[in-house]
């Protein structure tokens, strides 16, 4: 069976510090991978998606970046965090267009 992992679960970082959130998928190959951000009580904002290793599509221009160094690994990064980067970050995978499977999320607070 497939599983998706995200870590850390919670993170408190000061403004200007770097960020690295990791997402890995087990039990499948060549998935589409997605990063979403959810502000408190709001919907999901698509940040990045990837259809293959090294292929990243960015939806929102900002100080965040994503990388896919391996088939089942998706990393969200920032060199310098802003207060506005606070939120709930969700990683998801799917096989092409279909049901998405979400990770447990990372709650990021930038102070």
């Amino acid at each position, binding site marked *: 069976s497939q599983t998706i992992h995200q870590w850390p679960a919670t993170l408190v970082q000061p403004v200007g510090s770097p960020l690295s959130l990791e997402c890995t998928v087990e039990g499948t190959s060549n998935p589409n991978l*997605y990063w979403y951000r959810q502000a408190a009580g*709001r*919907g999901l904002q698509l940040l990045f998606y990837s259809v293959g290793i090294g292929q990243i599509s960015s939806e929102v221009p900002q100080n965040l970046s994503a990388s896919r160094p391996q088939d089942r690994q998706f990393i969200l990064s920032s060199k310098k965090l802003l207060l506005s980067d606070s939120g709930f970050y*969700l990683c*998801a995978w799917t096989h092409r267009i*279909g049901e998405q499977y*979400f990770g447990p*999320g990372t709650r990021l607070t930038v102070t």
Partner: protein
Amino acid sequence: SQQGEEDPQALSIQEGENATMNCSYKTSINNLQWYRQNSGRGLVHLILIRSNEREKHSGRLRVTLDTSKKSSSLLITASRAADTASYFCATDEGKDDKIIFGKGTRLHILP
């Protein structure tokens, strides 16, 4: 970009009543999905309806799709306290692997 828009934003009903949530979208789609999110958790897939389908059932869930009106509805029958959650619709845009979520409906089931 925002594709799906749920209506209402929030809904409170008595346990045992039916809950109906609506979703409207803007562009042609291949399929539409509904997801559920408990507070502070990842999203869980509920049901997927393809563009050539008009209605689909899964347990107490009934989803309809009207592509001419670019709208969908999610009906939860005989609601239970455990149905309290946020519900999101999600659509592809018909041309790539992006999946876009609406802002969600917060459903509260009153005992």
